[in-house]
């Protein structure tokens, strides 16, 4: 054992290690605090936490799980982007290649099951936050940030569902986006849309309504694919990442994980 200890201490004391981590393995409280402050990832955390908030049976670790899955999705998604081309000609066959030719042939699986798991994790996180009453003051705003994150998570999943460009994908998106046709005022079959006319011409019709804007055409096609691809890979993740940062910031500013006062 003393052999291993020697190796450990020579690593920890080396110039390389110190240059990266700034402190060695913490042995006293001062160093424990410095370990948290001196590291950009760890400093998301406070130096000390309430014991009640640390318990798995309190937070269920569900917010953390949702965040971890968000990271998994980012990394696996990035790897998928190396192969996948969002065009009607290639998309489906790139899926097959991902399964049969690409190295680590489970990237798609990780990405898909991770996405399902993230949806469930976010629901459970919300469920936990509700059951501990953690949305009550001063955390009202963070609950609202959370609700938007929930919506974004669902939209991420929904836009991603189209990308394999198989029967499952386009028909699920067809069913989903058909709803937009019925948007009040803004859908061609929505209540009130007929009222929006200009000099006798209808403003809202199948070529101009909310559904048309969503799927970039009258039917699901190449335009929809590229639109959903950009939303899925760039726009929504960007907004979600920003809001997650706000969410974590507010967890800290609202006094850390909730607990009885």
């Amino acid at each position, binding site marked *: 054992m003393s052999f291993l200890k020697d190796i450990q201490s020579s690593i920890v004391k080396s110039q390389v290690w110190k240059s990266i981590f700034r402190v060695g393995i913490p042995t006293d409280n001062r160093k424990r605090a410095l370990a948290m402050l001196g590291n950009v990832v760890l400093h998301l*955390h406070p130096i000390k936490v309430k014991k009640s908030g640390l318990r798995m049976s309190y937070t269920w670790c569900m917010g953390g799980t949702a965040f971890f899955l968000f990271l998994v999705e980012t990394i696996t998604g990035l790897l998928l982007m190396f192969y996948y081309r969002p065009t009607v000609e290639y998309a489906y066959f790139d899926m097959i290649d991902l399964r049969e030719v690409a190295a680590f042939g489970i990237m798609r699986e990780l990405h898909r099951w991770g996405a399902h798991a993230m949806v469930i994790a976010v629901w*459970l996180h919300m469920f936990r936050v509700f059951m501990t009453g953690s949305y009550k*003051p001063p955390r009202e705003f963070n609950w609202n940030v959370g609700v938007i994150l929930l919506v974004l998570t669902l939209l991420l999943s929904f836009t991603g569902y189209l990308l394999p460009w198989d029967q499952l994908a386009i028909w699920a998106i067809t069913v989903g986006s058909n709803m937009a046709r019925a948007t009040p005022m803004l859908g061609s079959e*929505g209540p009130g849309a007929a009222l929006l006319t200009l000099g006798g011409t209808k403003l809202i019709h199948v070529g101009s309504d909310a559904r048309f804007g969503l799927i970039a055409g009258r039917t699901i096609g190449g335009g929809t694919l590229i639109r959903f691809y950009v939303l899925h890979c760039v726009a929504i993740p960007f907004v979600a990442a920003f809001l997650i940062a706000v969410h974590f910031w507010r967890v800290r500013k609202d006094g850390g994980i909730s607990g009885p006062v």
Partner: protein
Amino acid sequence: MEAIRDLINFFSYPQWSFTLSLVVFGVMLWSRKLWTKKGGLLMLVAVTAFFCLSLLDPNFRQVVAKPDNVPIVMMVFIVGYFLWLSLYKAFRNDELTEAGEPTFEKSEVEDKIFTWPDLVFSEFICMVILTVVLVIWSIALQAPLEEPANPSVAPNPSKAPWYFLGLQEMLVYFDPWMAGVVLPGLIIVGLMAIPYIDTNPKGNGYFTFRERKSEIVLFLFGFLVLWCQLIVIGTFLRGPNWNFFGPYEFWDITKIEPLVNVDLSEIIWIKLLHVGLPSHWFVREIFGILLMAAYLFVLPVALSKIKFFKKYYEQMGPARFYIGISLFLVMMLLPIKMYFRWLFNLKYFIHIQEFFFNV
């Protein structure tokens, strides 16, 4: 065996299973015995046994084992587990409070612990476990890939992604503008409004049931009975043409369900008054319009006078009370419409096809 299967198929039809779930929901919240370790184990064994026995049935197996449906099976178990955990902790805390002792969380809240190493290490271990689970899951179960997209051949049934199947199931009872736009929008608005409507200062930062009964009952009703249950129905029990199929029923494409639904206007003008439908839409639909207006605008005011609600009215003030009760009534429109459909074959309360305005 066959008889039991038929019985379960029969009682899984929405009118029965939904009613049953309401009863179960009531019993669940009323009985504390379920939310003990023993009760939890019993429920787990019962559900698992039901699930495993059902797997023997080929029709059941076929639906449950679809790759994209596997997460929903897991979700049912996971949601069940966490429901148990939260109520277990809530009732233990309530027992402590009743005995005049501090809650479990209270006894630990002053105790501050260094983040390094405790929190950092538990996060690390969580990540390792999650990674392992995800990798095993991905190796064991291939992501689905069906035939290449073909816009001219619609699969039957065509289903939205599973997390939206609750909304798709609502389409049975409401038109798309309600089920697909207004109600989901109000779910989001309602969720966001929760912290501003709920003025109960108690139960902030610990599990409890006693101190915030109505909040919890309402939330669980929405989350479990409406949201999760409709997803399960939409995923496992809706087959071709969105017809209902019991868990052991074969998804027969040729199954035909007679369309016998009638509008409120038809029931009143034709069946009760024997005069035929008036030609102007406003006169024709006047009863439905009055009914809806009464439900959404008169009922909240009437409720605020009732003793049970008066308490909340005074606590919350008029603005919070009316917003809260309106959101609640809109949520209740769904089960109400369901029962009207099952009992009277009601199609629409208000049916103004002229403007696509059907409720």
